[in-house]
């Protein structure tokens, strides 16, 4: 069984004014695999993150669920946070109870109910998370530029000037592209070649 | 079975009791489903709501071990309503008046009290069964595995005779034989009181016939049954035991008791294909062959003889069991074991066994033969008792209801019943090494009614300890409405949580069948640390 920690965020009044955050955290405590659950004023703040880190250590949590804003907003923040607490950053899941709950619902009871379900879903997923390791792959520091027109030539020069090798591939017998076909160019009417 | 399997399809009413047909005999269930499609009424009377129950027109759950009561009740209604088959009773049976008297006290009210079957439902069942053109009774271990097993079976026979639902196609009393060749091993006298073909050992003429056939003097005393032999070991009377392809340590009731016996026995020989729990205790283990590695015949539940054919060689030094037995026979000094093939053995069988007289390997290659088949031009008997019963008139046996041997009490407040799963077979020696089957389910469980689960305070999948007076096992809980309040169910395929450590070795006085289907148990929660 996992030891999941659940942190339900007030986000000041953003969430707490609509959702009964404490009851969501209380419910979370009863979910399978949950070893610890609490509410936090601002979970993304320094204090909030410290509270999460402390809880991970104190309760030997192996997974963390934060119920707060959209993962598109703070997923990375919390991943880093639990990483500093020694957990694999991918053992983290978010429940979106702000953008997709407190901000879009008026009825407090129903919004609280929905938040609970969002937390249940996040915990259910979290319980099945496995640690992941980002992979590394070597980089061949050689660029290929396809097309020998103005853009291609310029790209080759820019990359070359940065100190990297470039191969410029042009289909026709000469580089130059359309530019070479032009007489003068606007708006300065200078020569194109 | 009095009738053959395909006949089910054309029945108008099928009364199923004590049979988890879709699990244990799926292809018979298939026929029953077909019958239903054709318009037959399906009635299921079973304490546990199994798959077949959900397909039934009428399903009712009786209390465990109350079968005689509801069958008697059914007969009383039939008589009351005049639904009995008077001409059949008159022409083909005897003892009707005694029966009438015996069932008179089983008023619907009383039956409802004993069995839990509402009287209206009972009446409906009675009507459909008695008044349908062709009614067939299907039963299985749910009827027989009781201390009152014989009573139960006889009651069903009474019912069939009372309504004349026997001796015609698609009727009859049809016990479904659990194992592939139960019928055959019984036919071939792997039972203590008869010679092959149900010829009593106590009958001097018959004994003489066999003495002549086998060329040795034979014992006139009936032998011991399985449970009796185990008891005899404990009593020091039985010293040596040869076990062929069985696993009594798991399959027999009160297995703690069996284990003690097998530990105590002087000499145990086990012939099997796997190292079973029983084989581990043996002094000599002989490697046999699986069904794919040998030739021979099986007799199906409807008395149909069929061949099995060798597809591949037995592994390594293992040998076909008939071959092994011929060698054992010779080794222990027997005569008449010089067989070169199973077919030769079968020829001898057909000779000594009148009901198999007309059967040869050639014939069963080409036709379906149900015994009795007494001569080469006898087509066999898909259904029995066509023109009369074997012993002349069908005898009604008046039977009274007896409660199960062990009833729930304060200490053991729940009733345990056992059964099969569709995915496993018997003690699992074959199915539990089959990946496809173990993938489906590979651990024991205990079905508990939600109310009981709440009382005990257990949740789904939580492991509990189930205890009877004879032992205890641990298994996870499945909460379901399929079992009645107060009843728990457990499959018996799993040696590590063997239901038979709990079951009672109470025997039916006549058939000596143990009461697998009812015993009293207690359920306890196990703390996480223990589990």
């Amino acid at each position, binding site marked *: 069984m996992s030891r999941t920690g659940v942190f339900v965020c007030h986000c000041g009044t953003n969430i707490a004014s609509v959702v009964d955050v404490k009851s969501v955290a209380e419910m979370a405590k009863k979910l399978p695999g949950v070893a610890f659950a609490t509410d936090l004023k601002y979970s993304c703040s320094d204090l909030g993150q410290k509270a999460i880190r402390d809880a991970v250590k104190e309760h030997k949590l192996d997974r963390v669920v934060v119920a707060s804003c959209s993962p598109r907003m703070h997923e990375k923040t919390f991943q880093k946070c639990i990483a500093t607490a020694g957990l694999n950053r991918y053992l983290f899941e978010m429940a979106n109870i702000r953008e997709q709950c407190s901000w879009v619902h008026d009825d407090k009871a129903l919004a609280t109910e929905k938040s609970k379900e969002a937390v249940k879903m996040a915990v259910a997923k979290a319980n099945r998370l496995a640690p992941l390791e980002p992979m590394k792959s070597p980089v061949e520091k050689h660029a290929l530029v396809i097309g020998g027109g103005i853009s291609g030539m310029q790209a080759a020069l820019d990359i070359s000037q940065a100190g990297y090798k470039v191969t410029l591939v042009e289909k026709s017998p000469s580089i130059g592209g359309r530019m070479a076909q032009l007489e003068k160019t606007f708006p300065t009417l200078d020569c194109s070649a | 079975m009095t009738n053959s399997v395909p006949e089910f399809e054309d029945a108008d009413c099928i009364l199923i009791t004590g049979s988890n047909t879709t*699990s244990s005999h*799926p292809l018979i269930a*298939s026929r029953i489903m077909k019958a239903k499609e054709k318009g037959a009424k399906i009635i299921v009377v079973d304490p546990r709501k199994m798959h077949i129950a959900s397909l039934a027109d009428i399903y009712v759950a009786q209390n465990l071990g109350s079968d005689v009561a509801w069958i008697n009740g059914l007969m009383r209604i039939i008589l009351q309503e005049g639904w009995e088959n008077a001409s059949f009773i008159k022409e083909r049976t005897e003892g009707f008046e005694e029966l009438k008297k015996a069932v008179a006290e089983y008023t619907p009210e009383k039956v409802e009290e004993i069995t839990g079957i509402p009287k209206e439902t009972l009446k409906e069942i009675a009507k459909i069964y008695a008044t349908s053109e062709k009614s067939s009774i299907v039963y299985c271990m749910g009827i027989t595995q009781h201390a009152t097993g014989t009573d139960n079976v006889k009651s069903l026979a009474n019912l069939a005779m009372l309504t004349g639902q026997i001796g015609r196609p698609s009727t009859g009393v049809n016990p479904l034989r659990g194992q592939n060749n139960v019928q055959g091993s019984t036919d071939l006298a792997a039972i203590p009181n008869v010679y092959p073909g149900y010829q009593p050992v106590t009958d001097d003429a018959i004994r003489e016939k066999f003495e002549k056939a086998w060329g040795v003097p034979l014992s006139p005393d009936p032998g011991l049954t399985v449970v009796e032999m185990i008891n005899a070991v404990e009593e020091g009377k039985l010293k040596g035991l040869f076990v062929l392809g069985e696993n009594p340590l798991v399959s027999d009731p009160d297995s703690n008791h069996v284990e003690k016996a097998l530990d105590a026995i002087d000499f145990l020989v086990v012939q099997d294909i796997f190292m079973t729990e029983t084989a581990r205790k043996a002094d000599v283990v002989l490697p046999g062959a699986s069904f794919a590695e040998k030739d021979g015949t099986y007799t199906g539940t409807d008395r149909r003889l069929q061949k099995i054919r060798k597809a591949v060689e037995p592994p390594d030094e293992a040998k076909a069991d008939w071959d092994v037995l011929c060698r054992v026979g010779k080794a222990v000094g027997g005569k008449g074991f010089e067989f070169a093939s199973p077919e030769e053995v079968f020829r001898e069988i057909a000779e000594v066994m009148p009901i198999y007289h007309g059967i040869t390997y050639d014939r069963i290659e080409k036709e379906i033969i149900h015994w009795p088949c007494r001569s080469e031009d006898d087509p066999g008997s898909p259904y029995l008792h066509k023109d009369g019963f074997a012993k002349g008139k069908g005898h009604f046996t008046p039977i009274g209801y007896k409660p199960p041997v062990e009833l729930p009490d304060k200490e053991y407040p729940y009733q345990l019943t056992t059964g099969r799963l569709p995915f496993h077979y018997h003690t699992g020696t074959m199915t539990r090494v089959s990946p496809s089957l173990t993938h489906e389910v590979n651990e024991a469980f205990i079905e508990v009614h939600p109310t009981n689960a709440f009382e005990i305070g257990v949740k789904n999948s939580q492991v509990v300890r189930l205890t009877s007076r004879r032992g205890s096992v641990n298994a996870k809980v499945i909460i379901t409405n399929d079992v009645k309040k107060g009843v728990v169910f457990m499959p018996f395929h799993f040696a590590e949580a063997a239901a038979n450590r709990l079951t009672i070795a109470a025997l039916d006085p006549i058939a000596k069948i143990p009461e697998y289907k009812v015993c009293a148990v207690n359920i306890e929660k196990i703390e996480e640390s223990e589990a």
Partner: protein
Amino acid sequence: MEKFKKYIKELFESGEIEGFLGIRKNGLHPVPHLFTPEHPEELETLTIPDVRYPMTEILLTIVRKYPDKKLGIMVRGCDERALNELVKNQKILPELIKHIGIACSADLAASCRCAQPYPEEIHYGEKVAPVEDRSDIEAIDTMPQEERFDYWMSEFSKCIKCYGCRNICSMCFCDQCTLEDNDLIATGQAPPAIPIFHLIRAFHMAGRCIDCGLCEEACPAHIPLRTLYRKVRESMSGFLGYVSGTEGGEKDPLEFLGSEGYMVPSKIDEK
């Protein structure tokens, strides 16, 4: 028949095929058998009964072990569709498999309600008229929605989870079956969770089912599985213009991304 046997013998002798998967008579029973040049005498038992075994499924069993052998296989219309689909799914190499075509009898075509009871090339039998019969689908289509639901649920509830429909199906060549995924459908339950068990199999048949009907023949619970899969087959052709079992051509739009405009479904009538 003798001509047919001779033809197979010739194929053996010329080395065009190294084995012929057909049907042999065993006592009362016709059973599948691989005839080989090593045992030409077995051809005497060769038979073409009005009984169908999953020949292509058996072929896969053989090909798995002998991927390089040139094999002849007795194909009916349905088998040929199955082979086409197996080629598309990279299960067999068409150049190694010789189709030896059998036209089904009128009886068999009728009992199979077969829309194409013959393969492209016929080596035995006479072409009989296809049976165009979608009365099974129509009957269900015309039921009111609730009745339809009750009908299917009661059919599905008969399932004893034998997996026969899958086992006999040539299109079910996966080594591990989703139907046995405990996370999706709880294992160990019979009947299995309905309708998900049957709907998932139905969906898996989309773009794959070649309407041979062997599943339904194999079903001990007599569930009208073929009707269900035929419907999916119709949906595939109706909405996406894809018919499985045809030779070569387009790829299954449920698997093949294609370019942006590839098989955009037409609008579904929701009534």
